[in-house]
């Protein structure tokens, strides 16, 4: 069992001044799986990602990634272990160009000394080109990232994660604020990048979820309410209750 799973979250809990944002949660993701996490506002979706990537520290429980406990590692060590995380609002370096954004995110040159004496290799140049093609930003490579549209910024941040080639990619509402064509392009992008890695996507947009998702986890009040294929979850009474009941 443990071999098939890339991420095993067990008995995870965190509370803020007594409020339990995540409560005794068990959550498993397989290798090469694309998992969508949905749930009403305040269900603990973003907190779950925060816990996995180390932004928030767990009060109880374990997070095992490739059998390694992440709860003891610092944020950058978690990244080194192979976990990439995209934030809800696009967070990119607006004062740098798209190329520089991607280059800074590439592994290598991560310590003080190696970043001081970092040299751009032809391999890296090619890799940046390749990523730029994937995220539809080839023409914008030398543009200042601050000038990109909202949707392009979201893609750039995804690209910044891809260049690290993470084994687990976590995306927090990647299509929020996107137009319909942008949303479709993003769905295509996700379907392409999910090869060879596990992806967790938090999303509100049900149409988008249907475009990409097979297995869906529904969070509610810090707990898992339902889990399974989209059709099954959609017909689950408790899920309907939570989404439509109030």
């Amino acid at each position, binding site marked *: 069992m443990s071999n098939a799973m890339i991420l095993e979250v067990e008995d995870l809990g965190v509370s*803020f*001044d007594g*409020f339990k*944002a995540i409560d005794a949660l068990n959550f498993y993701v397989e290798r090469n799986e694309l998992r969508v996490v949905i749930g009403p506002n305040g269900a603990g979706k973003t*907190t779950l990602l925060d816990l996995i990537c180390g932004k928030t520290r767990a009060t109880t429980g374990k997070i095992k990634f490739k059998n390694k406990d992440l709860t003891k590692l610092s944020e950058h060590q978690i990244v080194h272990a192979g976990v990439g995380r995209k934030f809800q609002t696009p967070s990119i370096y607006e004062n740098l160009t798209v190329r520089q954004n991607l280059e800074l995110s590439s592994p290598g040159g991560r310590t003080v000394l190696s970043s001081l004496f970092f040299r751009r290799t032809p391999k890296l140049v090619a890799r940046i080109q390749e990523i730029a093609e994937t995220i539809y930003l080839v023409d914008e490579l030398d543009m200042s990232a601050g000038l990109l549209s909202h949707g392009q910024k979201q893609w750039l941040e995804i690209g910044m994660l891809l260049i690290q080639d993470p084994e687990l990619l976590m995306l927090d509402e990647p299509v929020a604020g996107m137009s319909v064509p942008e949303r479709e392009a993003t769905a295509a992008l996700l379907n392409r990048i999910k090869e060879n890695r596990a992806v967790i996507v938090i999303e509100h947009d049900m149409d988008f979820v249907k475009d990409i998702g097979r297995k869906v986890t529904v969070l509610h009040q810090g707990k898992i309410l339902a889990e399974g294929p989209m059709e099954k979850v959609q017909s689950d009474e408790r899920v309907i209750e939570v989404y439509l009941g109030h």
Partner: protein
Amino acid sequence: MGDFTAQELTAIFVMQGFSGLSLFCVFLLMALGLAIIFGQMGVINMAHGEFLTLGAYITYLVSYQASEWGATALTWYFPVAIVAAFAGTFALGYLVERFMIRYLYNRPLDTLLATWGLGLILQQVYRSTFGPREKTVTMPDWLLGSYRATDMIDIPLNGLFILVITLVLTVALFALLYRSRWGIKVRATTQNRSMANAAGINTDRVDRLTFALGCGIAGVAGAAFTTIASTGPTTGSLYIVDTFLVVVFGGAASLLGTVVSAFGIAQSQSILSFFWSGSMAKVFTLLTVVVTLMLRPQGLFASKVRR
């Protein structure tokens, strides 16, 4: 400490403690204004000390005028001086916000630098207007003398007076921030500016009044300050670093924290300075605060927030 009897030690502690209380009052009066401006608005006002100085000079002017008018005026000028000091510094604060600070919101480090520049200019203005020598206020008779609690314990009346002013002001400020409608507006603005705007609060106006109020409190602090020391152009700036530490140490957004940390810092400086030299007492106290802040950067009173 072996050279002192228990009774003497008690007396020392009480009297040093009391002189610490005066320092506590200055810290707290200055810190209250800063805590509002910094804690509520996130603006670092390095010219805050100069507002205190202005309040002190206004008090000096009122007392000077009163001594021209005779004994009765001299007995009762102080309440007038407090009002004048508040009004003067409030007005200056209002102008400073209107013409400078409002352009620098969201750039806290830049407000720090700009207000420091303002402080320099104000100091020079004071120096040119009042001269470099320190000015002493003519005190009303009822503030002179002291209250002898026991044979060895002697408590000066002006110290008691400043303590009363501080307490009244603190309570009034608490009431204003936590019990009045205006206080709700201020807190709403600090917590979520755009939401407060949407809820019909004129946040620009709230900012301006909050800043002016913080400065006005510094003015009152200046008036109170004249009863325990004389005033020079750089009087206020001597306390600015200590006061910032007081505010940060208490946890910037917590008024209660400000009170407690002002008390702690003032008392430890004052009591330690009896056993060591004054400078070493200050070094020790400030160092303790700085190290504590390194270990607990959020200050003493701050709650864990989900973000």
